[in-house]
């Protein structure tokens, strides 16, 4: 019975959190709603990054390319389509982009893969820029802004979706294959895993949510151009947040992204001149004293809690 109650605990926690989130715009200031939307965006980016990079160990820096693709889809369709459809469209565009890129580059390993994904962001950004200069003749676009509450709910929906999909993948045959690929690609292949297909599809699924969140967030910005849409920060932040939180449990990237983006918010408002410096110092301290991130601290604490009653008896 006890173990049963324990397996349900994460679900109860998730539902409570969700209920709080859904009710939030009713009793919070619009500043809080915008802040929470921002945090949710980073949580979604980090969770979707973890879907692929967590088990496989392939460090992708392509997040900004998929996020930006979503932003541009939004720029093209936001005036004619409702928000949920725009978000789906942004996700679909990134999914397809990731399938194409993935089938070409997922043969690369380690540093080479990381470098390529970094290059991809620049390639896409410059291509869009070139297209705007030479074809459409205007750089940047104005986006029909949506209501802050609507944007917030859209991000909550994407968050729930990425949470459900992550949970499902971890506990499915696909999750087992991803874990095997992360440990030995060769052994996985010789055990019957279609390594290329598993990697490409998962990479695309993770890109879908990045694109959907990009399409949603662009509605808050009203004006976008290639530099803001494909900002490399959207590539680095999910990686840093995943390092900060951990990738072994579903809660870890969520905790990492939440604490990290709150920290960013506090530092930029209180110490606008020193914030990058402070940020760097905090990151150094974290890596030095918490090599497994927040997750490492929490798991050590949980194991201690588990062991203590048996030692007393």
């Amino acid at each position, binding site marked *: 019975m006890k173990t049963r109650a324990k397996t349900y605990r994460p679900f109860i926690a998730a539902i409570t959190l969700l209920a709080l989130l859904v009710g939030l715009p009713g009793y919070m200031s619009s500043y809080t709603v915008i802040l929470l939307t921002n945090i949710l965006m980073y949580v979604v980016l980090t969770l979707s990054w973890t879907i692929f990079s967590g088990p496989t160990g392939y460090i992708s820096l392509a997040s900004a390319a998929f996020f930006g693709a979503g932003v541009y889809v939004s720029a093209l369709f936001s005036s004619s389509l409702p928000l949920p459809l725009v978000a789906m469209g942004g996700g679909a565009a990134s999914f397809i982009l990731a399938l194409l890129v993935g089938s070409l580059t997922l043969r690369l390993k380690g540093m080479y893969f990381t470098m390529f994904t970094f290059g991809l962001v620049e390639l896409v950004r410059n291509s869009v820029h070139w297209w705007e200069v030479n074809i459409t003749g205007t750089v940047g676009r104005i986006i029909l802004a949506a209501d802050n509450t609507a944007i917030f709910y859209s991000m909550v929906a994407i968050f729930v979706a990425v949470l459900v999909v992550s949970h499902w993948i971890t506990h499915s045959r696909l999750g*087992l294959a991803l874990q095997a690929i992360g440990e030995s690609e060769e052994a996985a292949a010789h055990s019957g895993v279609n390594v290329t297909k598993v990697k490409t599809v998962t990479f695309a699924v993770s890109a879908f949510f990045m694109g959907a969140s990009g399409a949603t967030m662009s509605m808050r910005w009203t004006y976008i151009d290639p530099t803001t849409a494909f900002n490399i920060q959207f590539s680095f932040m999910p990686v840093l947040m995943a390092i900060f939180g951990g990738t072994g449990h579903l809660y870890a990237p969520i905790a990492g992204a939440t604490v990290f983006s709150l920290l960013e918010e506090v530092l930029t408002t209180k110490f606008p001149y020193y914030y990058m410096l402070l940020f760097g110092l905090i990151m150094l301290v974290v890596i030095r004293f918490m090599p497994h991130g927040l997750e490492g601290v929490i798991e050590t604490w949980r194991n201690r809690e588990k062991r203590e009653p048996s030692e007393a008896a």
Partner: protein
Amino acid sequence: MKILEAERLSKHFGGLTAISGLNMEVEQGAILGLIGPNGAGKTTLFNLFSGALRADTGVVRFKGHDITRLKPHRIARRGLARTFQSVKIFSRMPVMDHVRLGYLFGRLDAGEKGEADREINEILEFVGLASVRDSRGGDLILANQKRLEVARALAGRPDLLLLDELMAGLTPTEIAEAMELVKKIGRRGVTIVMIEHVMKAIMSICGRIIVLDHGLKIAEGTPEEIAQDKTVIEVYLGE
């Protein structure tokens, strides 16, 4: 019936010839030993059979079908499994899940969950890893890691199993146990090709032996014939 046939198989790495025009056959149900000095091309041959490498020329046929250009996962699903010279277990993954992976991906007819659990447990009992089923792969001793590779391979219910130096690095007691395991697998009707340097094991388990040197087959026969072959004694066995 021939379960595996190689015809005029060749593989070069730059200027180095690893396998040179090799012809060989494996009878269904046989236990075949593959011996030869270091660099003879034994592991390269396994890599060609299992799809890790692609042959420059020649054909590999498995159960009558040409598999020369198939990818590793396709070959595995057709029933050709292998282990690795340097063990490639998943160090952070529980023992059970290794076998589950082999069961779910190594065959085309994976059953219901209850059926899967029953068969996974049966395989763990068979190789002698039932007591450590929840341990992580990386926490096992070498002898058990080697058993785990065998278990993962068997989970795909293979018709042919390639064992690459299963006994290397084991103690005499562990070698005796590994020999028992190989015989038991053979009795299940699985055809086995094994690369081995432990001559005692090769001589007592294998029905036939093929000797490779510089990518060429220099001898083939029963253990007795091989033990008396002049060329083999010269290049490999010594006086």
